[in-house]
């Protein structure tokens, strides 16, 4: 069934500035196999697809296809050699028909098919992908699932030797996943070698003949799917328990990975010192009234629905975790609350005042701070300026008091106060992002994925700070992929799936709920 290696990756590395996305990665994919690449958010999976497809140039290592070194080849040449890829968020040519989307790949490919033969072949591919009847539709009219199928169909029109599938399962409901599994199996039957980067483990389990597990840009494990998925070590990486000494076998963070300074001795910051960062003292007056309330809120990115009728509430002083797999809608939820994504319907209230439809800066002025995913530090501003810009309408005395509290919380920021914000290491940037959110003296802070891509020891440090803020009475909404971390600090939790609330309740209860693991690892069939 499987032959020699079609793809050989040796010592592959990719850095973005100081950030290491992929480090010293070596593996081979044998001809005719279906290889899965899994790992938590920020493990470097999508970077790997970019490196293999030629959209990104590696900073080290080599890639060979069927014995030929293709490391230096640009994307079009790799496509002509027979590497087809899909995008995680579908990128069809919207103004073309479905059929024309495939025609692009055929016209550009090395195979010079005759017009009639090409047309027939497109028909075959589209039928195989379940797009037969939408062949002449404008791609713009396709719903998400069909756009994902179109991604696959378009890559197949290249007649690839190697097909790279980037998170084709993200955001699909179970029935749709079943259809996708059937499609991938059918493609594999035609002897196409497939590499799947995937979060939905069900797809991986049902399609792959081999699995590679990535964590923090490095290979953690490599082997048969059944063994890998049964391993506690892998489960730990997913649920975020990897930093617990109990699991033992977790490798130390890569030397030379994100250059972190050694963690300074965690200072003991008294709750009182942080009080000046916690706003909304009056919010506690009306006990029982929620500080934040969402009532059947829906939102979408263009055509792609992100949130479907979500209802949620946060009481004053409460810490609420928002969990869910990649693509479940966690970040969309954070964006809708802070006003950076417009809601389609539903009501959002802050302490009884309707904030739906307000501009992001108006919402910020009302007391919601949003520590966005990806840190979003202003490169042109120094560390201190990054902080001061968020202390809007505060008297100079108040600003400097808050600065002092921040510097007590994260002393490393005080040391680097004059440095440009983006010259910091990943962990320090995250501290800065957290601090910037606090400088507004907010009534409610949304922390979005603050642990993403960071070493466990740094995450410890961040969560210590959050615990201190919790003691000081700060109301927090924590969006987190690291389930354990979030549930440890939270009072209550919501678990999202496909943009809806799949599970909600007391943090302890959620932690013990068998459905939680299923929602992540996808045993729920």
């Amino acid at each position, binding site marked *: 069934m499987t032959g020699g290696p079609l793809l050989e990756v040796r010592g592959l590395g990719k850095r973005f500035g100081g950030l290491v996305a992929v480090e010293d990665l070596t593996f081979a994919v044998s001809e005719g196999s279906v290889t899965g690449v899994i790992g938590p958010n920020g493990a470097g999976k999508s970077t790997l697809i970019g490196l293999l497809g030629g959209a990104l140039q590696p900073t080290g290592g080599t890639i060979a296809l069927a014995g030929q070194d293709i490391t230096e080849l640009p994307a079009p040449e790799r496509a002509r050699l027979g590497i087809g890829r899909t995008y995680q968020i579908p990128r069809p040519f919207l103004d073309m028909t479905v059929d024309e989307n495939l025609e692009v790949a055929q016209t550009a490919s090395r195979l010079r098919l005759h017009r009639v033969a090409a047309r027939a072949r497109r028909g075959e591919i589209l039928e195989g992908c379940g797009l037969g009847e939408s062949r002449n539709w404008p791609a713009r009219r396709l719903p998400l699932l069909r756009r994902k199928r179109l991604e696959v169909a378009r890559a197949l029109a290249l007649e690839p030797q190697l097909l790279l599938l980037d998170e084709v399962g993200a955001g699909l409901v179970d029935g749709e996943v079943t259809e996708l599994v059937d499609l991938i199996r059918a493609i594999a039957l035609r002897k196409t070698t497939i590499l799947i980067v995937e979060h939905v483990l069900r797809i991986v389990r049902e399609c792959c003949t081999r699995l590679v597990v990535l964590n923090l840009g490095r290979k953690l494990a490599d082997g048969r799917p059944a063994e890998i998925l049964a391993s506690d070590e892998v489960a730990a990486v997913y649920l975020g328990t990897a930093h617990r000494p109990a699991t033992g076998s977790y490798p130390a963070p890569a030397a030379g990975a994100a250059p972190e300074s050694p963690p300074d001795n965690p200072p003991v910051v008294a709750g009182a010192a942080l009080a000046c960062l916690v706003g909304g003292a009056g919010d506690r007056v009306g006990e029982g009234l929620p500080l934040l309330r969402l009532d059947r809120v829906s939102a979408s990115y263009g055509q792609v629905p992100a949130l479907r009728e979500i209802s949620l509430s946060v009481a004053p002083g409460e810490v609420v975790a928002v969990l869910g797999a990649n693509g479940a809608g966690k970040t969309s939820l954070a964006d809708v609350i802070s006003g950076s994504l417009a809601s389609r319907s539903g009501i959002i209230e802050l302490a009884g005042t309707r904030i739906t439809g307000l501009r992001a800066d108006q919402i910020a002025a009302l007391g919601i701070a949003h520590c966005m995913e990806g840190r979003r530090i202003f*490169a042109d501003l120094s560390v201190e300026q990054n902080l001061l810009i968020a202390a809007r309408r505060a008297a100079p005395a108040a600003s400097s008091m808050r600065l002092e509290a921040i510097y007590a919380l994260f002393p490393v920021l005080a040391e680097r106060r004059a440095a440009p914000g983006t010259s910091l290491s990943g962990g320090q940037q995250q501290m800065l992002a957290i601090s910037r959110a606090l400088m507004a003296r907010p009534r409610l802070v949304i922390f979005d994925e603050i642990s993403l891509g960071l070493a466990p020891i740094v995450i410890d440090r961040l969560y210590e700070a959050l615990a201190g803020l919790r003691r000081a009475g700060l109301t927090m909404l924590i969006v987190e992929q690291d389930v354990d971390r979030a549930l440890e600090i939270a009072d209550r939790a919501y678990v999202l799936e496909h943009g809806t609330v799949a599970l909600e309740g007391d943090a302890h209860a959620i932690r013990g709920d068998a459905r939680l693991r299923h929602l992540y690892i996808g045993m729920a069939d």
Partner: protein
Amino acid sequence: MEAIASSLASGFLLGGIFALTALGLSLVLGVLRLVNLAHGDLLVIGAYAGYFLLTVTGIDPLLGLPLIALALALLAAPLYHFLIRPLMGRGVEAPMMTMFGVSIVLQNLFVVGFSANTRSIETGYSTSSLTVGPATVGWIYVIGFAISVATVVAAHLVVTRTSFGRDLRACAHDSVAAAVIGVNVGRVRMLTFAAGAACTAAGGTLMGLAFSFTPSSGAGFLLNSFAVVVLGGLGSILGTLVAGITIGVLQSLGGVLLGDGYRDLVALVVFLAALIIRPQGLMSMRR
């Protein structure tokens, strides 16, 4: 020898004025991601404003500079509100083409309103000159240089030292993140556009004092400003000053070596070369 020294000195001083003329273009490009193709025509407005201020009211254009700047800022604000703002978020082409339309309209309004005649602003200092060592330069170059450098340095201080400047830099780098921490991005953009227009108008008046101009001088002015912006690096105001002076001196050198007709060509060649050699310098402001 003296001719060369004078020419280089004039080029140096003129370069300072170039920096001021490019300032508005640079700010608007950095903060709004807008290629203001009407920038040259805003400069021409500044020149006409200086001309008519002098000929109609007799007020010296230099004294009237703040008035001219204020008037243009007040004109620019509605321009932003009605023409640019609705197109934000629809890509870079739509607002750029809109400003091209504005440029065409302005140019032809100049012809209709002020005739196609070549004009120059005649003042006492626009004809007299100053001699230092071997170099003789027009007084207007000296005064213009002083005003321009002062304005550019002031703009630099505003952008780097004030809270508005902080907001401006945050918007330029990441407008979504800026909005989320409470910056009113729309307001920052409008103020930047208006302030940029004010600087542009002042620069235009100085250009009108230093050179003669016609209704169609805008295209040349625009490209000259663009050359300064590209060479100086987007987002760097002091870089703009250095680039302006460099281009001023290179132009003079070109004029001395190749003949006067090649002066303007030098700036364009420098511009094209800078665009092609260091596009990464250009992209540095883009996310």
